[in-house]
C-alpha cells in the first residue's frame, strides 16, 4: 500500500510536467522533420540525375535528350519527387506555381531565376514554348544529306546552342546565346527562327520587374511530398497502378518483378545484379494467389494464368505508420537500414557508457575523498588531458599502434566483422567471440572522453556532498570512512551523474560521425553522413528525425530521473 501511495505521489509530482513535455514533443519533432526536409531538398545536386546516370541511361548526345528526359520523369515519379514539396510555397507574383513539374533540377532553378528577372512567367513560358520547334525546323530544312562537313559542324553547334537555351538563367546570358545562334543561322544560309526571336523580344521589352516584389502564397493541397512522407496516403486516393503483363517462355515479368513456372508452381525470382544468379524468393500454386509486399509496394495479381492483371499499390504508409520510405541509394527500406545501424550504434554506446561508469565512479570518489592529495592532482591532470584530446586523433593513434602490421597487429583495422569468415547462422556466443576484437579499439575511442567527463562530474558531486553537515554527523558517530563514503555520500553525489546518462545516449547516436567513419562502423553517424553525401533524402530525413526525437526524449527521461533520485525536486511549477 505504501509503495502504491508513493507511486501515486510521484506521478502527481512529475506527471503534469511530463505530459506537457510530451505535448510539446510532437510539434518539435514536426519542426525538426520540416527543417531537415528543407535542408535536404535545397542541397545542390539532383538525386534524379544521379540515379539516371547510375542507371547508365544518361544519353550525352543531344539526340538522346528526349529519352533521357522521359527516364528522368519516370525516376522522379517513382521516387515521389514529381510532387510539390509542401502544402504551400512562398513565391513572388512573377513566379510559376507549377514549376515543380519540370523534371530537371538545373532547368527548374534557372527557369526560376529567369522568371524573377523578367518578372512574368507568361512571357517566359512563351519563350520556352517557342524553343520546341526550332530543332525540328532545322532538321527538316537542313537534312544531314545535303550539308557539307563545315555546315554539319555549324548545324550540330546550332542544335547544341538551342538546347542550352533551356538552361539560361538571365537575360544577359540569353542575349549572348541568341547572338551566337543568329551568327550560326547566317552561316548555315540565312535561316530565321521567327517565333523564337519574337518570344525573346517580347520577353525583353514587356517584362514587369515590379511583379517580383509582390509576395504570393501558392496552395498545393495535401498531395505533396511532405504529406506523403509524414502521413502517407491518408486523405489521398490509393495510388494503384495497373500493369500490363508480358509472358514468354513461361516467364512472366512486370515492372521489376519476375515469375517463372516450374513443376506447376510459380516462383517469384530476382536476379542478383553482380553474379547474375537467380534467387527464388517465394512460390505460389497459381498466379492469382500472388500477393506480396516488396520494395514498398503491395502487389496483387488477378485473373487466370493466361489472362492476368497486376495491381501495384505505390501508396505510402507514412512516418506515422512506421514507414520511412525507401532509400534512394539501393531501394531498401529506410526503416530496416536505420534499424540495423541504430542497433550497431546502440550496443557500442551501451558498452562504452557502462565501461565509463565502471571506471569513472570509483575514480571520482577516490579523487574527491582525498581532495588535494597526490591521486587527486594526478588524476585531474590526466582526466583533463583526456577530456581535451580530439577523438579522431586518439582513434588514428589507436589504429596506428594496435592495428598496424609494423607495430602490433592485435586488432582488425575496420568494420564490425570479417565478411570472409562471418556466418549469419552462428550462435550468439560465436558471433560475439568473432566480433569482439573489432569493437575493442572503437570502444576505447568512444569511452575515454566520456569517462573523463563523468569522472570530473562525479568528483565535483562528491566534493559538494562531503562538506555537508550530515556527512560530518556520520563521521562524528564514529562510522568508518568507507561506510561514510559508500552509504552516505555516494547516493546523493550520484544525482548529476545519473541524469547525464540520459543525455549521453542521444548525443552519441547522432554525434559519432567521425569515429564511425574512421573505424568503418555502419552506425547511425556513418549512415547519416553517407546519406548526405549521396543525396539520399529519405535517409537524411530519417536520421535527423530519429536522432532529434531521441534527444528530446532523452531530455524528458533526464528530467524524470532527476525527480526520481531527488524527491525534493518538483517539476510542475
Amino acid at each position, binding site marked *: 500500500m505504501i509503495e502504491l501511495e508513493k507511486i501515486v505521489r510521484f506521478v502527481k509530482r512529475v506527471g503534469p510536467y511530463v505530459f506537457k513535455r510530451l505535448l510539446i514533443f510532437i510539434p518539435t519533432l514536426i519542426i525538426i522533420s520540416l527543417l531537415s526536409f528543407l535542408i535536404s531538398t535545397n*542541397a545542390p545536386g539532383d538525386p534524379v540525375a544521379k540515379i539516371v546516370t547510375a542507371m547508365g541511361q544518361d544519353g550525352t548526345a543531344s539526340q538522346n535528350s528526349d529519352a533521357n528526359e522521359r527516364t528522368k520523369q519516370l525516376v522522379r515519379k517513382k521516387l515521389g519527387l514529381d510532387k510539390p514539396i509542401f502544402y504551400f510555397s512562398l513565391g513572388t507574383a512573377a513566379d510559376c506555381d507549377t514549376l515543380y513539374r519540370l523534371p530537371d533540377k538545373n532547368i527548374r532553378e534557372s527557369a526560376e531565376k529567369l522568371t524573377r528577372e523578367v518578372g512574368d512567367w507568361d512571357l517566359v513560358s512563351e519563350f520556352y514554348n517557342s524553343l520546341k520547334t526550332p530543332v525540328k525546323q532545322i532538321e527538316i530544312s537542313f537534312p544531314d544529306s545535303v550539308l557539307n562537313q563545315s555546315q554539319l559542324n555549324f548545324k550540330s553547334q546550332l542544335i547544341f546552342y538551342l538546347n542550352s537555351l533551356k538552361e539560361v538563367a538571365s537575360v544577359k546570358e540569353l542575349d549572348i546565346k541568341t547572338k551566337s545562334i543568329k551568327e550560326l543561322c547566317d552561316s548555315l544560309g540565312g535561316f530565321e527562327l521567327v517565333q523564337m526571336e519574337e518570344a525573346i523580344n517580347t520577353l525583353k521589352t514587356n517584362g514587369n520587374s515590379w511583379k517580383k516584389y509582390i*509576395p504570393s502564397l501558392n496552395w498545393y493541397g495535401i498531395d505533396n511530398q511532405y504529406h506523403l512522407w509524414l502521413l502517407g496516403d491518408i486523405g489521398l486516393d490509393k495510388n494503384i497502378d495497373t500493369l500490363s503483363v508480358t509472358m514468354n517462355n513461361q516467364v512472366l515479368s512486370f515492372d521489376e518483378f519476375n515469375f517463372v513456372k516450374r513443376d506447376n508452381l510459380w516462383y517469384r525470382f530476382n536476379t542478383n545484379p553482380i553474379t547474375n544468379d537467380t534467387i527464388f524468393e517465394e512460390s505460389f500454386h497459381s498466379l492469382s494467389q500472388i500477393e506480396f509486399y516488396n520494395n514498398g509496394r503491395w502487389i496483387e495479381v488477378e485473373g487466370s494464368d493466361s489472362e492476368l492483371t497486376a495491381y501495384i499499390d505505390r501508396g505510402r504508409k507514412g512516418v506515422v505508420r512506421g514507414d520511412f520510405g525507401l532509400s534512394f541509394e539501393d531501394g531498401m527500406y529506410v526503416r530496416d537500414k536505420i534499424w540495423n545501424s541504430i542497433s550497431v550504434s546502440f550496443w557500442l554506446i551501451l558498452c562504452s557508457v557502462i565501461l565509463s561508469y565502471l571506471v569513472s565512479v570509483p575514480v571520482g570518489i577516490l579523487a574527491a575523498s582525498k581532495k588535494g592529495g597526490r591521486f587527486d592532482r594526478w588524476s585531474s591532470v590526466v582526466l*583533463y588531458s583526456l577530456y581535451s584530446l580530439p577523438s579522431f586523433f586518439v582513434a588514428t593513434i589507436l589504429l596506428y599502434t594496435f592495428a*598496424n602490421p609494423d607495430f602490433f597487429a592485435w586488432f582488425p583495422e575496420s568494420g564490425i566483422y570479417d565478411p570472409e569468415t562471418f556466418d549469419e547462422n552462428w550462435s550468439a556466443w560465436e558471433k560475439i567471440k568473432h566480433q569482439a576484437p573489432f569493437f575493442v579499439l572503437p570502444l576505447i575511442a568512444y569511452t575515454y572522453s566520456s569517462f573523463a567527463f563523468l569522472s570530473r562530474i562525479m568528483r565535483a558531486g562528491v566534493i559538494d556532498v562531503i562538506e555537508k553537515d550530515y556527512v560530518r554527523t556520520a563521521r562524528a558517530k564514529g562510522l568508518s570512512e568507507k561506510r561514510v563514503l559508500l552509504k552516505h555520500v555516494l547516493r546523493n553525489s550520484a544525482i548529476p551523474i545519473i541524469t547525464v546518462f540520459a543525455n549521453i545516449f542521444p548525443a552519441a547516436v*547522432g554525434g559519432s560521425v567521425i569515429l564511425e567513419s574512421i573505424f568503418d562502423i555502419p552506425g547511425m553517424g556513418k549512415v547519416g553522413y553517407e546519406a*548526405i553525401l549521396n543525396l539520399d533524402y529519405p535517409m537524411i530525413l530519417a*536520421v535527423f528525425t530519429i*536522432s532529434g526525437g531521441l*534527444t528530446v526524449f532523452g531530455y524528458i527521461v533526464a528530467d524524470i530521473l532527476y525527480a526520481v533520485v531527488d524527491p525534493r525536486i518538483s517539476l510542475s511549477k
Partner: protein
Amino acid sequence: MSKIENKEFTFKIYAWEQFKANKPGLWSFYTLVFLVFIALFSPFIANQQPLYVEYGGKSFYPAFQTLFDESYSDTIVNPETGLKEELIFTHTDWRRLKKESVIWTLIPYSPEQFDKYNTDFVGPNDDQEYRSHEGMKESPWILRHHLGTDGLGRDVASGLIHGTKISLSVGILSMGIAAILGVFFGAMAGYYGDTKFEVTRLRKYMIFIGLFLGFFYGFFIRSGDIGESFSDGILDGFLSFVLGLIFLFGFTFFFSLIGKVIPAKGFLGRSTPMKIDSYVSRTIEVLNSLPTLLLIITVAAIMEERSLVMLMVIIGATSWTGIARFTRAEFLKLRELEFVQAAKVLGYSDRRIIFKHALPNGLAPVFVSVAFGVASAILAESSLSFLGIGVPEDIVTWGSLLSLGKEEFDAWWLVIFPGAAIFITITVYNLIGDALRDALDPKHKK
C-alpha cells in the same frame, strides 16, 4: 585585505587577481598569447621567401615584398653570365640560386609549396635533399623539414604554423557570431520572458507582418544575389548578407512602429503578451536536438563554394544555443534585482536597461561559455577538415594534415604533430574557461 580597502578596487581587478592565482589558467593564457603571436606573424615564421637575400649585388626582402603583392618581381644582372635575369619572386627557388648572403625564416617553406625533392612522406629523421646551384645536396639544418613532409612534399611544420591562424580565427570568429546571436536572443528571452513584453494585438500582428516582409525582401527574393556575391568574394557576400539583415530588422521595426502609432480599439486594441521566451526556448530546443556535426555537414554540403568564412558562419549559427541559455538564465535573475527595478522606476527605456545596466552584469557566464565554445569550434573545424568537408582543399589545416596521416600508416609525423597542436589549443581554451569560471564566480573565491 589591503586591496579591498583600496578605492580603485573594482570587480575587474578582483577577477584578474583571481585569474592570476590559477596557475594552469595563467599558463594557458600565456600559451594562447604565444599562439596568437604565431598566427599573426606566420608569414615571417614559415615562408618560402627569405627575410633577406643578397643576390647579384642587389638586396631583397622577399618575405615582406610578397606579403601584399604576390606578383612582385625584380631584375638583376647575373654576375657570372652577365645576362639580365628576371626574378618573379613567387616562382623563384631561392635555394637554388648562388646568393651572396641570405636570412631564411625559421621554417623556409610555405604551407602550400610542393618540395619536389622531398615528396612521398619524408620523415623528420630521413635523408632530405635540396637542389643548390651546385646540384643536389644533403639539406643543411636550416633547410630541413623538421617535422617531415606529406605525400606532395608540403612541409608539415609550415602547415602547422599557418594552420594556427586558421584554427584561431575559426574559433574566435565563429564564437563571435555565436556570442552576438546568443546574447541577443538570451537577453530578450530572459528579460522579457513570456509576459513582460505586452503589446496591443495590432502591434503584435504588425511585427509578424514586418518579420515576414523583411525576410521576403531581405533574403527570399535576394537569395540568388546573395549566392552570387558570395562567389564573387567573401566581403561582397558578407555585405550582401548584412544588407539582408538590415532589411529584416528595418521592416520589423518599421511595422512595429506603425502598430504603435495607429490607435487601435476593440479586439485589435487589447494588449497581449509576446511570448518571446517560448519562441526562443523552442528554437533552442529544436536546434539542440539536431545532431550538430551532421547539421554542419549538411549545411556545408549545401554551400557549393567551400570557404572558411562560410564554415565559421555555419559553426557560429549552430552553436549559439549554449550561450543563449546561460544569458537567459542570468537575465531571469538580473531582472528581479534592485538596480534593474530601480532603473525601471526611473523610467529608463528597456533598451537602455538591457544594454547599459543588465548586460554588463550578465556577461560573466557568457565569457566562460565562449571560452569553452572556442575549444569546441576548433574541434568542429578540425573534425570537418579531417573528414574533408568545409574547408577548401588547397588550404592546409591541422585537421587536413591529420587526415593525410590516416592514409599513410608510416607517416607518424602527420598524426602526432597536428594532433598535438589541436590538443594543446583545445586544452588551453578549456583551462582558460575553467579559470574564468572560477575567477568570475565569487563563490569559488580562493
